[in-house]
């Protein structure tokens, strides 16, 4: 009795999981069907694996180019966020001064600000910087990366700060007595210890930057600079009626995320847990 009850529960649980992911099934099967097949039965399996919609979605979305843009922007932004924020957090923890407290408090307080509250003035500031210096902030990858560093710094500093507080000072004191400078101490002794938090920051920022739509839509206007969410958005604007083509495009955008999830699942769940509970 007990055993069969458990088996039933296992089966029900799996069915629930499958039902939960059914929108993905619908997306995939319809990316292979022609119009007639789709309107005949939207839930059935395709009669054959016809990749024509993938080929045309790929070229219409300029998929490879958007993928590389997304990858480049995410990797470079996250690299800078990790390096800058960990350095800053360490200094703020180790410098017992009222200035450190004020700076840290400002970082934490700004985590409350939703993007929509400052998107317009942000564009004004970036426009002003572009007009008055040689830096091009708008419609450039550099500008977008710069803004990601600014937006990402609060949470990263906060997470690193929390971790560094728990590192005993004695580790650094010995090195200081040996005459090592702060740069050396940070990179050789402290930064390697920060690894768990570094992974958390990388995961959380990757999910955020990879999926972000609104900021790049305001910053990038050149077609060649589009990231994946941007090219998906414009692609849909043009081809809403052709659903099979649209579904093929969506499958293409989902695939990289799923592959990443399969390989980095352990870190993702850990990172998300650490980020959420704090």
């Amino acid at each position, binding site marked *: 009795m007990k055993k069969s009850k458990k088996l039933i*529960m296992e089966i029900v*649980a*799996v069915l629930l*999981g499958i039902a*939960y992911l059914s*929108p993905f099934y*619908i*997306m995939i099967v*319809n990316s292979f069907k022609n119009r007639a097949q*789709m*309107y005949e*039965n939207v*839930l059935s399996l395709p009669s054959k694996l016809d990749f024509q919609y993938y080929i045309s979605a790929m070229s219409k979305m300029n998929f490879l180019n958007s993928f590389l843009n997304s990858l480049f922007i995410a990797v470079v932004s996250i690299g800078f966020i990790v390096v*800058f924020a960990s*350095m*800053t957090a360490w*200094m*703020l923890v180790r*410098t017992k001064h009222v200035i450190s407290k004020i*700076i840290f408090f*400002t970082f934490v307080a*700004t985590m*409350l*600000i*939703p993007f*929509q*509250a*400052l*998107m*317009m*003035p*942000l564009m*004004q*500031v970036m426009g002003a910087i572009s007009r008055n210096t040689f830096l091009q902030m708008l419609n450039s990858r550099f500008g977008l990366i*710069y803004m990601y*560093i*600014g*937006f990402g*710094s*609060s949470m990263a500093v906060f997470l690193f700060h929390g971790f560094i507080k728990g590192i005993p000072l004695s580790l650094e004191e010995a090195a200081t007595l040996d005459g090592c400078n*702060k*740069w050396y101490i940070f990179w050789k002794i402290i930064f390697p210890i920060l690894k768990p938090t570094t992974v958390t920051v990388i995961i959380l920022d990757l*999910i955020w930057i990879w*999926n*972000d*739509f*609104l900021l790049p839509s305001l910053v990038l206007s050149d077609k060649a600079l589009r990231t994946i*969410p941007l090219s*998906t958005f414009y692609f*849909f604007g043009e081809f809403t009626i052709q*659903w099979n083509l*649209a579904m093929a495009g*969506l499958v293409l955008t989902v695939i990289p*995320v799923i592959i*990443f*999830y399969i390989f980095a699942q352990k870190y*993702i*769940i850990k990172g998300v847990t650490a980020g*959420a*509970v704090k």
Partner: protein
Amino acid sequence: MKKKKNKLWFAVFTVPTLVAFLTVVVIPFLMGIFYSFFKWDGIPLHEKEFVGLSNYGLLLSDERFLNAVMLTLKYTLIAALFINLFGLMFALLVTQKLRVKNTLRTMFFTPNLIGGLILGFIWQFVFKNVFTQLGDATGLNHFFFNWLLDEKYALIAIAVVSTWQMAGYIMIIYITGIQSIPSELVEAARVDGANYLQRIKHIIFPLLAPAFTISLFLSLSNSFKIYDVNLSLTNGGPSKATEMFAMNVFNEIFGYNNYGFGQAKAVIFFLFVALITLVQVYFSKKREVEM
């Protein structure tokens, strides 16, 4: 000498972050408050006309805005309820002694990794084509029809998609909470003859209170800020019936070019979000003191 050197190191370590942070977050935020006192169409050469607080006064007579706010509040409550209900249910399920529990956790969490924009497009297809076909095939036309064309159902549709996206995330928080409950406690209750529901009610739920506070407020503030799903699923339609707060702010500024007025809305938007989070901090602190 040493002090000077320390100051220099402090600068080396903090200035790069601070420059980006100040120019991207702090200065735009302060300027945003400043802009909200002006009438301006966003063109740099055009003059900004100082109007004091009148933008804020105008908000009270902007019917579209008031609708968007009320709608967002309603939506936030519905979505937060759904998200927590499903998140908690999933967490209770995957903390059972099941062989498939890890696979299941992976499945429930998957939609969370995909952006709201893309999820909204996938579900647009589901509502437009799958729901209508199911309605025709089963005759259940009252439930299976294109929800996106109906004012009331379109709002629920957005809540469904957001729940699909966020329940897995909230599940993770509840799992952490459930796992932190000492197993001896649950075991002792079982030995004393408490059945599963009694154990949930008297042992697990009370000890889940901290996880519940985090989950509730996280889902409240995330739902309140909804934009991507709103844009890709309904784009505010049918006929502006699902235009929510964030979208209203965006459209006022970049659609109607009312930069000053739109920014006043943005400031109010910030105040709402800040309020939700501050209430959470208050409750968490209060609990810490009581414990």
